[in-house]
């Protein structure tokens, strides 16, 4: 009896799920369970194993090891029953562009063996809900990205699934459409008392969930309600920017050894219980000039940062890389021609700028070195203006002009 009631209560049960692709471990021993009616979120960066988990749970990919039950059915031994219990919305669209909205729904109903009368009633409900009733006879080809998404969610609801899987449902959509789709998901959920399993890399979407699992490198690093997760950080977060971050950190450690402090990019982050009262103390303690200071309540982004040491969506790992200019003939020939003095001054100005930006760390020096080299080359070429090689080059250039 216990087993049965637990089956009803916990719609998704996953134990020690693993998926390996050769040497790559996409999902590394994931365990969790989702209660009926819950909105459960998987939050993590690209390539964390979110989609692989959904593919395994929806029986598209067999797991390497581990067990999972959906609606009480084993995903390996009872794939057909699992498939009838779930609705899926993939990251990329899976609509048939050649067909109308209505035909897409009809084919889905046929594939899931929904009786025709039930379908006619569901079709109306579902199309009205996602505001596509007027466009039901339109070809999917002519739909916008947001409309396609809504139609896809509508389609996934046709066969009244127990669990709705949403794999990054709003990725690539504008904020307005995103909000609309979320309204729609919430209404649908309320109407059908559905369980929703969501993967996302957007913090605000994860904050709407009943419970969130933070996933990184195929492992769940934390699983709790968004509020509890944020409480892990303990209080407020102060982000500040000073003229000498290293010195500021040293001073801070000396005065408040019990507080947490981190150096992220060119900013300092401090976690403290009462941020508003701490700021005046902080300002007095630190001698380098503070250029900016922000106090905010922790978000799931901060939780992720705390747990993994990285941001969820890092661009270029926080570093700014200078792009090499493509080879162009004009600048090549300019090496052999003496530059006017004004330009050299400009170049020197640029050097100073780059030094400032890089804060004397690596890259600024590199560019400086490069420029020095270039200058050396130029001087050399100026001196050795009469050597054979350069004559040849110039001759060729002349020939080209003549031709």
């Amino acid at each position, binding site marked *: 009896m216990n087993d049965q009631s637990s089956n009803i209560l916990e719609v998704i049960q996953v134990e020690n799920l693993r998926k390996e692709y050769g040497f790559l471990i996409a999902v590394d021993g994931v365990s969790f369970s989702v209660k009926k009616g819950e909105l459960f979120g998987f939050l993590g960066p690209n390539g964390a194993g979110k989609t692989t988990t959904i593919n395994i749970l929806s*029986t598209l*990919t067999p797991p390497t090891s581990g067990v999972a039950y959906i609606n*009480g*059915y084993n995903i390996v031994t009872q794939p057909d029953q699992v498939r009838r*219990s779930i609705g899926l919305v*993939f990251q990329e669209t*899976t609509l*048939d562009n050649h067909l109308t909205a209505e035909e897409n729904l009809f*084919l889905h109903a046929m*594939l899931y063996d929904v009786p025709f009368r039930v379908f006619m009633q569901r079709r109306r409900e579902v199309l009205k809900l996602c505001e596509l009733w007027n466009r039901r006879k339109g070809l999917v080809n002519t739909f916008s990205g947001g409309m396609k998404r809504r139609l896809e969610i509508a389609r996934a609801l046709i066969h009244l699934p127990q669990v709705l899987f949403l794999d990054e449902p709003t990725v690539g959509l504008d904020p307005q459409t995103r909000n609309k789709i979320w309204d729609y998901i919430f209404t649908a959920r309320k109407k059908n008392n559905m369980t929703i399993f969501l993967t996302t890399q957007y913090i605000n979407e994860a904050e709407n969930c009943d419970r969130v699992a933070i996933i990184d490198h195929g492992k769940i690093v934390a699983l709790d309600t968004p509020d509890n997760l944020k409480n892990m950080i303990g209080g407020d977060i102060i982000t500040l920017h000073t003229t000498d971050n290293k010195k500021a950190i040293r001073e801070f450690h000396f005065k408040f050894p019990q507080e947490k402090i981190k150096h992220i990019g060119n900013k300092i982050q401090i976690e403290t219980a009462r941020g508003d009262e701490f700021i005046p103390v902080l300002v007095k303690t630190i001698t380098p000039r503070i250029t900016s200071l922000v106090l905010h309540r922790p978000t799931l982004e901060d939780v992720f940062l705390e747990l993994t040491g990285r941001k969820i969506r890092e661009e270029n790992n926080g570093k700014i890389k200078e792009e090499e200019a493509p080879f162009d003939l004009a600048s090549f020939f300019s090496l052999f021609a003496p530059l006017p003095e004004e330009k050299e001054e400009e170049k020197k100005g640029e050097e100073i700028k780059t030094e400032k930006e890089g804060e004397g760390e690596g890259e600024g020096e590199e560019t400086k070195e490069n420029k020095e080299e270039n200058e050396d080359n130029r001087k050399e070429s100026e001196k050795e203006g009469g050597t054979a090689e350069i004559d040849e080059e110039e001759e060729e250039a002349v020939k080209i002009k003549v031709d």
Partner: protein
Amino acid sequence: MSNYPNYRESSSRKLKAIYTIWYREIIIYFRNTLKLFTSIFLPLLILIFLGTGLKTILPTNILHYDFSKFFFPGILGLSVATMALSSTMSIVWDREFGFLREILVAPISRTDIAIGKILGATTVALFQGFLLLLVFPYIEINFNITVFLATLGTIFLLAYGMSAIGIYFASRLKRTESFSFFLQLVLLPMVFLSGAFFPLNTAPSWMATLASFNPLAYGIDALRWTSLYYSLPRAQLNNITLHSLPACLIILVVFNVIITFLSVKVFQKIK
């Protein structure tokens, strides 16, 4: 705990799944009016221009029969085969546009999907064959209901086999660009060794040997027998075909059964 408790893997459920896949192929074919038009237009073009042109260098006093009579069943077979093969390309399209996933996660078996796809392509090719048959009376072929039905039946056998070949290869292809390579590599040798353009029994024996491995050659031979049965004397039919009608039909049926198994097996491994 399923929503529809009377669910079971019954034969009516299987038929519904096959019907659904088939139905979609048919909708797509008839919605694509350009494809519909070219599929009729091209074979007629070949028949009228190439056929008329070739007729002038092969006059009746050499051949002892009208060249267009020889040529027509060949073009019929070719266009049916091309149509069947290219219709299976919908799998590659579906993969590229994501719809294949919707089908693959549905609670229906892979076998049913593959058979639905084969039957869809077969129907499309059969329809095209039917339209071309309407030209029959204009090229002085003795036309009656027996000829019509027998030819249509043969077209079905040929179309089915070619569709199954198409599914067998198309399920392995990941990108739509690869499909044109596939058509060139598989279809062209089959076409040249099919006896559509010249009788194979006057060709060198190595060609005839190669052609005996070509299902399209049997299909076109069978089409010649069925469509020209009342138009040419037996002896002449024997001269322009490599195999007898019963042999062709038996081989086509056996081939269809084997290739169905193979293509279903390949389709089950699709990801």
